[in-house]
């Protein structure tokens, strides 16, 4: 009981609440800008938190984290460009809704599902941390490998039209992910003697190159073509009520997305991007009527956003319980703890119980703050699509170039952005969707590291196959992979038997 009193006392300070709101709002703005990520937003704010008391500092940074992951969906919905990698899957149905002149509907769906997903993630953090932390340790290299393979089977869902083109796109992504120093073994690959390529291609830069640049070129090209115009945005009445009904009518969808987000979140190395993609994929596959996905289906936006905000809570589990960051932004929060003189590790709860429980409670509150801010903001944010192309396109290009430079303070990344942006445009004109390419880029390194480490570890027990089948989670993941690959055929088979009856 004492701890609850102390938590409430520290939360009822007006400054703490103001910083929380400020953090969420700032995170939303940064997250909305393509190229500026949650990690960066937290890193930029880090020095300002030194002078704050530890609880305020953590609450501010947590707010930024939550806000930025949500903010990513704004650009995804409005300009078909994920603001952060976590909102890749939001583009699939979010942007078509914008094209139909209903960006507010997509934004509010995203807000509601993010808010609910985030709160579920926070509750898991509050009540299940020791349990989930034990689960996190069960994920080793073999599990990483198979979760990446499971992710790669999503190409079928993501390739919108031609499966062959999707597979080619995925392979391009995998190949691009290999450039630079090998994660295991340290040999330099495909650098052709250029030391600039040693660090490999930065995911965010490639994300902008394959999603944003082709989109902007298309925008400019189609300026005068009336059939290609985005419908202008007119505010509707009752959208909020409509969305709430849509989302609440589907409790399983949100719950499933949130659970997937939390589980992916606790796995270090796989972040909100994998979570939202997996959740989107599962939602499509498990839906009876799949025909409206990719054409502006509310379920698609909810699946993606519900998962990526629940992932935030999940990624904090290994951080708070073990001192291991579950995602890159969580790594920066470790830095913030260290600078406050707090040693993250297995004893964090024991030694700093009040602080940690204050943080978790504030984390849940921040999700509600985000929900409210996003619902009120959506009216105004939606108007972005009414901005004429001749203002919007150059502004986007300007922002993306700054963003791509700012990620690693590296000019090579700007060159990469331009070169691959043009390649991405040519590919998209030929019918190659950007999602499979980016999927390969995200999952390539996870699969490679997992497999290489599995091979090295299996030297100890003698056989790679034995290593795989001796681990329950790996067996489950392998079964999921097989199911995922066979599901289209099973679906057809079921239909056939039905029609025969």
């Amino acid at each position: 009981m004492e701890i609850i009193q102390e938590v409430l006392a520290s939360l009822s300070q007006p400054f703490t609440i103001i910083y929380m709101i400020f953090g969420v709002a700032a995170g939303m703005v940064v997250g909305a800008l393509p190229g500026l990520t949650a990690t960066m937003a937290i890193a930029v704010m880090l020095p300002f938190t030194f002078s704050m008391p530890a609880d305020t500092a953590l609450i501010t940074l947590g707010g930024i984290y939550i806000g930025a992951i949500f903010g990513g969906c704004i650009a995804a919905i409005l300009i078909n460009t994920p603001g952060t990698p976590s909102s890749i899957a939001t583009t699939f149905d979010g942007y078509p809704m914008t094209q139909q002149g209903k960006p507010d509907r997509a934004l509010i769906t995203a807000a509601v599902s993010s808010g609910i997903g985030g709160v579920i993630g926070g509750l898991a953090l509050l009540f299940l941390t020791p349990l989930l932390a034990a689960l996190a340790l069960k994920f080793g290299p073999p599990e990483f490998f198979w979760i990446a393979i499971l992710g790669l089977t999503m190409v079928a869902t993501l390739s919108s039209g031609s499966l062959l083109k999707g597979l080619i796109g995925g392979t391009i992504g995998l190949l691009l992910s290999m450039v630079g120093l090998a994660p295991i073994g340290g040999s330099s690959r495909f650098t052709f003697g250029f030391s600039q390529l040693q660090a490999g291609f930065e995911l965010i830069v490639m994300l902008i190159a394959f999603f944003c640049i082709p989109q902007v070129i298309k925008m400019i090209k189609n300026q005068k073509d009336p059939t290609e115009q985005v419908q202008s945005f007119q505010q509707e009445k009752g959208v909020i009520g409509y969305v709430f009904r849509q989302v609440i009518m589907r409790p399983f969808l949100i719950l499933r997305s949130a659970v997937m987000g939390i589980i992916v979140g606790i796995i270090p190395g796989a972040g909100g991007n994998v979570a939202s993609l997996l959740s989107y994929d599962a939602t499509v596959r498990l839906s009876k009527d799949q025909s409206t996905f990719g054409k502006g289906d509310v379920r698609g936006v909810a699946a993606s956003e519900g998962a990526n905000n629940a992932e935030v809570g999940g990624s904090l589990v290994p951080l708070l319980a073990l001192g291991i960051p579950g995602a890159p932004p969580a790594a920066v929060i470790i830095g913030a703890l260290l600078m406050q003189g707090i040693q993250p590790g297995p004893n964090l709860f024991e030694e700093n119980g009040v602080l940690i429980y204050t943080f978790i409670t504030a984390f849940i509150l921040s999700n509600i703050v985000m929900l409210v801010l996003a619902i009120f903001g959506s009216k105004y944010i939606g108007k972005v699509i009414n901005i004429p192309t001749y203002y919007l396109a150059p502004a986007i290009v300007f922002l993306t170039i700054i963003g791509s430079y700012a990620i690693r303070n590296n000019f090579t990344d700007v060159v990469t952005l331009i070169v691959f942006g043009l390649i991405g445009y040519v590919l998209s004109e030929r019918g190659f969707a950007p999602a499979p390419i980016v999927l390969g880029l995200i999952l390539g390194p996870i699969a490679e590291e997992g497999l290489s480490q599995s091979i090295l570890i299996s030297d100890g027990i003698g056989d790679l196959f034995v290593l795989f089948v001796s681990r329950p989670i790996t067996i489950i993941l392998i079964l999921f992979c097989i199911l995922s690959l066979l599901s289209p055929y099973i679906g057809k088979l079921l239909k056939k038997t039905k029609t025969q009856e």
Partner: protein
Amino acid sequence: MKRHFQFTAIAATAILVVTGCGTGGGASNYPSETVTYSIPFGPGGQSDVEARRQEPMLEEKLDTDVNITYKEGAGGAVGWTELVGEQPDGHFISGMNIPHIILQPMTQDDAGYETDQINPVAIFQGTPIGLAVPADSDIETMDDFIEEANSGEQMTISGSGTYSGHHLAFMQLSNIEDLDMEYVPSTGAAESIQNFLGGNTDAVFANSNDLVTYKEDMNILAIGAEETFEALPEVPTFQETGQDFTASIDRGVAVPPDTDEEIIQTLEETFLEIANDESVQEEMINEGFEPLAMGREETQEHIDQLSEEYEETMRELGEIE
């Protein structure tokens, strides 16, 4: 949208400042502008934490603004490649990690820089590397470990990075005791600890601060410090257990080649003053680090000596020709 543009303006200004547009002054009025302190790793890492600790003291002593930036990639190589090409006017300094700056050019043809281009100023922190097994393991001492490693079953040891401090410690131990073990590298210290705590490997090479953090979960067999490590007084050094090597990740600061000696001296004095500050040292010890204060000359000798030692080990193991 207005908000976006405001943010953009701020970001653009920040970038101009970061890239150091402006003209440098001579040695006599150094520092005449903002000093950029580049960290060749990501934000929130140990190098960043250390630089942040120094920042206010640096600003006070140098009487100028200090701007910390991150230049991440290829285990630090991207940052050091930038360092050796920067203006040698003392307004661009960079964090420097040993053994990284020795091993990267030694093992890669296209590392982008050479070890002798790194112009050291000082070393302020050491992180001895230790070898540990799970707390419930039958292995209790270094002798048990070697016996187990010789028993025919292949042991796996987790560590962070290839041709890194951990990998080198692994190679030195294997070489000295003539053991056939498997090194399982991860892309970071946190991942490698997780691999170990999850029971995926038999043992782990870990940094002293991680050893302190996770000491309840592991049995630390030996540590690569030169003498008994203050934060873990009960752990013997490798030299005490009969393996004649030290293993440590040392953090310091460096400037571009051909920097004026006078400027280097100013920086050296400032960094050593901070390194010798009692409260700084106390904080480091509490976090599981070894406070060091090595000046320019001593640092250079340290680098030269280690370069020779590492080259010999790598040659014996056939890692380099």
